Each structure stands twice: as C-alpha cells, then as structure tokens.
C-alpha cells in the first residue's frame, strides 16, 4: 500500500552485502531520507510562494516585488504586496498546514482514513453559524461592485457566530464521547448526527431568508483566502503553531495508537486522554480556519493521505510532512484560483477538491498496484 521511498530497496540489500553496517545505521539513513522529503517540500513551498507573490491581476515585475518586500516599493505595489498578496500567501501556508495536520491527527485518533476536519460536523456547524449571523442577525447585504454581487457587511459577526457554533458542536461531541470512553465509533457517529442536525437547522433558516441573504451565505460558504488580513494571520499562526508543537509532543502516542488500543495502553499511553486532547485541538484548528476562511474541503483528507503513501505512517515524520503538504496544496490551489481566469478569483475550496481528488485517486491506485 505504500509507495516506498526510492532507494529503500538498495538500503535493504546492503544488509546482506555489507556486514559492517548494522540495522541501526541503515535505519538512520532511511529516516534521513524522510527528513530529506521534508526539506524538499519546504523548498517547494518557498518556490511556489515566490511564484504566488509575483502572480495576480496587477502586473508587477520581480524587481518591484522585491523592492516592496524590502520596504522600498511604490505606494501601489506596497498595497498589493503587503495588504493583499502576502497575507493571502501566508494564510494559505498556515491554514493549509493546520487543516492537513488536523486531518492527520483525526485519522489517527478516529482510526479512520476518511476522517478530516469536517468529520465531526464542524464545517456544517460553522455554516449554520454563518447562516444565523447573515440571515437572522442581518450581517449580509447586496452590493453592486463588479467583482462580488454580495458582500458581508459585518464579517466579524459571521466569524464569531461560525466559531461559536463549531465549538458547540465540538464540545457536545467530546462530552458525548466521554460517556463511551472516547471510542472512535462514538465520536464519528455523534459527529454524523450533529452534522445532520446543523444541516437541518441551516435549511430551516434559509427557507425563511431573502434571496440576497442566501446569496451572501453561499458566497461565505465558498472558502476564500482573500478574507484574511494581518490580525487573522497572526491568530491563525499562533494557534496552529501551538497546536503543531502539541501534536509533535504526542507523536509517539499516535504511533502506539496505530498498533491498537490495547497495545497502546500496554506501552503506557493514556488512550482516552490522548484522544480527547487530539480531537479537541484538531477541532479547534478546523473551527478557527472555517470561521475565518469558509469551507476549504479536501486538504485535511488528502494532505496526510498523500504523505502517508510517500513516507509511511510514522507520525514523527508524518505530522510535519502533512503540514507541509497541506501548505503546498492550498498555496498552489489559491495561486491557481487567482490566476486561472484573472481578474476573477475562483473559490479556492472548489480548486482544492477539483485537483486534489484526481491526485489522490492516482496515488491510491498506484499504492494498490504496488501491493
């Protein structure tokens, strides 16, 4: 099932051919290759970020971009680079990493390869919150700008409402799961139930809404990185940074959980506490990301799955690799969304799924053929 790292066979053959090298040395060289994959991914992100900062409907050459970043740019290029492109690029890198790493931990904690930040109904809960804000509290209105037919006139109210609803969903699920010792089944099933409850709530609210309000809600639902400015980027960076350190501190526990609940317990892992913490932190990332950016699907599912097939299931490397792959996928998708039919910016959520799905299917088929 795993697309092995190139050269692994060669390493293995050395076990028999070279008696001076023991298994530990071979293993260290093998993990060294995983580290190399991380470095390559990081370099790719930097490369795509450079392309992204130069791309857009306003034509700026590389010199103007560099001058702006160094603080010597013109007023126009400063606005484009500092207020539009850089926050957007950083948002893509950070949110992509957060969503993907949250998916990685959820797939482990729920023992389900289909788990992603939307599994526990967080996206639906956030969408319900946004509907509530726009339709019931009147945060959406019609505007006549050429690019957007509708605007959300009180984005903070929408964000706060979406966040509160997604955290309510998270807390209810975790409280319910607590009764059943945080079993994966209990969490997935209560997630499905709550998800459907929030969907029903959304439909009911929309039934009594006016056309422009529904248009505003639909507009909100399309994930869009353009909504984010420096304060939101800072919040996302702090949250996802802390979450990443937390996940890394639990990486051995996640590896043990992969070997089964009983084995993990026998290796000294407090299975319930690890699951409770993992699910809470990853749900928090999902809730904040969806509240700020709208629904961006597939990154949380496909990011960790791609890396699992390339570097295997060891969470010491899988967690950082998933984060990097999530950043790369969202950054590429957003750059495509901005440039494909410029000056129109396509919803990045659609692009991630549109290109992520075939890539994922390709890896899946290739993985099975290997087996």
């Amino acid at each position: 099932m795993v697309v092995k790292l190139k050269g692994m066979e060669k390493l293995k053959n050395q076990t028999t051919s070279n008696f001076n090298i023991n298994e530990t040395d071979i293993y260290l060289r093998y993990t060294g290759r995983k580290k190399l994959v991380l470095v390559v991914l990081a370099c790719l992100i930097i490369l795509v970020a450079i392309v992204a900062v130069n791309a857009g409907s306003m034509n700026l050459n590389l010199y103007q971009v560099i001058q702006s970043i160094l603080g010597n740019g013109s007023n126009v290029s400063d606005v484009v680079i500092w207020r539009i492109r850089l926050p957007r690029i950083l948002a893509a890198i950070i949110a992509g990493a957060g969503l993907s790493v949250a998916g990685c931990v959820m797939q482990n904690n729920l023992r389900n390869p289909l788990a992603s930040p939307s599994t526990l109904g967080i996206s639906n809960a956030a969408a319900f919150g946004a509907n509530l804000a726009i339709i019931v509290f009147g945060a959406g209105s019609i505007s006549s700008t050429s690019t957007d037919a509708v605007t959300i006139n009180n984005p903070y109210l929408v964000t706060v409402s979406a966040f509160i609803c997604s955290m309510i969903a998270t807390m209810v699920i975790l409280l319910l799961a607590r009764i059943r010792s945080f079993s994966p089944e209990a969490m997935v099933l209560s997630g499905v139930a709550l998800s459907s409850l929030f969907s029903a709530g959304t439909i009911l609210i929309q039934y009594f809404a006016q056309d422009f309000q529904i248009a505003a809600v639909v507009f909100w639902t399309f994930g869009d990185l353009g909504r984010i400015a420096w304060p939101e980027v800072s919040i996302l960076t702090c949250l996802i940074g802390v979450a990443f350190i937390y996940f890394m501190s639990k990486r051995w526990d996640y590896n043990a959980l992969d070997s089964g609940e009983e084995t993990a317990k026998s290796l000294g892992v407090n299975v319930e506490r690890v699951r409770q913490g993992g699910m809470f932190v990853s749900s928090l990332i999902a809730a904040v990301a969806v509240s700020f950016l709208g629904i961006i699907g597939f990154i949380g599912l496909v990011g960790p799955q791609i890396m699992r097939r390339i570097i295997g299931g060891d969470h010491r490397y899988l967690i950082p690799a998933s984060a990097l792959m999530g950043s790369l996928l969202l950054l590429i998708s957003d750059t495509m969304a901005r440039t494909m039919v410029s000056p129109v910016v396509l919803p990045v959520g659609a692009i991630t799924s549109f290109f992520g799905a075939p890539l994922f299917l390709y890896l899946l088929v290739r993985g099975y053929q290997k087996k």
Partner: protein
Amino acid sequence: MILSVNELAFTYPSHSVLQKINFSICKGDFLAVLGVNGAGKSTLLKCINRVLKPCAGAVFIQNDEVGKLSQREIAKRIGYVAQRQESVCMTVYDAVLLGRKPYIQWEASKKDLEITHKALKMLELEEYSLRYLNELSGGEQQKVVIARALAQEPNLLLLDEPTSSLDLKNQLEVVKIIKRVVRNQQIGAVVSMHDLNLAIRFADKFLLLKNGEIFAAGGLEVMTPENIESVYSISVKVKEIDGIPVVVPV
C-alpha cells in the same frame, strides 16, 4: 518473586469474568494459562497490566502494587502482546522501537536504538528491519510484536495466545524463543494458550481456569487427564513420546 496476584476479580456489567484469582511466579518461570474459550484467560492477562481495571484484588510486580504505579511505569516492567495484531503501515524497526515508548521523552536516544537492535537480533529479524509490517507473514509479525515487548526491557511478559494463528513450525519456533528469552533474561512469562501439547512441553507452571476461577494451579503434576477432562469436558490421555509429554484426546 516477580508477580503475585491476590484475590483478583473482574466483572462486566452483565456478568462476572474472574473471581478469587491467586497465584504467583518467580524469575525464569513460564506460566501457561489454560482453559476453554471464554474462561477468562485474556481478561486475566489484561487485568495484570491494567489494560482492564480489576474490580477487586491486587497485583504486585516485584512487590510494588501495579494499581499504584503510573501507566508508564507499568509499561517499563510489563511487556504485553495482544491476541490480535493490527495491520499497520510501519516498518519492523519502527514497530520494535515503539517498545521504547515508555522510556522516550522527546526523541529516541542512542541507547533506545541499541536496545531495539538487540531485540531484533534476539528474534532474528535483522534482515526484515525495513520491511513493512503488513507485508510480513503471520509468524514474522508475531515475532515483531514479541520483539517490541522485549524492547520494553520488562520483568514480566504477558502473551495472549501468541501461537494461535501460526503454522506448526512457527508455533514451535515462537514458543522456543519465549522459553529461551525467559530463561536467559531471568524474567517471568504468563502465556495464555490453547495448544495443550505446546503448553505441557514448554511451560514450567500451569494455571487451569474454569468459569473464571482457578480450577488447578501448579507444576507438571496438575496436568493430569482428570483435571484436563474437568476443564475441557473431553477425555484425554497424557503420554510421553521420546521423552516429550503429549495430550491426546480419546
């Protein structure tokens, strides 16, 4: 004395599984836990290292009460091999290194890698170290999980039916390895088994469970046709072939 179990009991909400379990084992002892399906063998093993919490009684490991030790401390003293293994996408080396989990603070140290290497060598798994677990045969996978338990450097091994899914050759090989490790490392082993012939041939002590209670416990002398008949409800004869005791149903 390595392990002492006093008045242990375990109850599910609907029914009682274990009652009044008392026994102890010393360094180098290989204890076979025998009984029909549902007699409480697996539950007993899980109660010893608190994968399940017993509802009464106490378990002592080297005179320390297991219930008062942290999970990490228990994991440093008791290695456990579950009945069923998950098919994991993990290399053999990583799987055995996981046995060092109770000792690892942030990253595996040089010592952890050395002990992993030693455990691989003990189970003759060196050449498989970079193979994925789910690409191995049942026998090889069983050896990997035993190596992982040994990497914990335990004083006691708990093995839940380690031979049940293996062919004849692998059954003998795995039990011989367990026996050798228990002798050489002077640790204890509590092994639940279905194969009476393997048990009677390799174990030093026997615990016959019937309906959640100890029916008989002791050395080879408890493995009488009468006791086996009472526990398994079938007639058997215990014979010797070339000096090896065998149990034959009649």
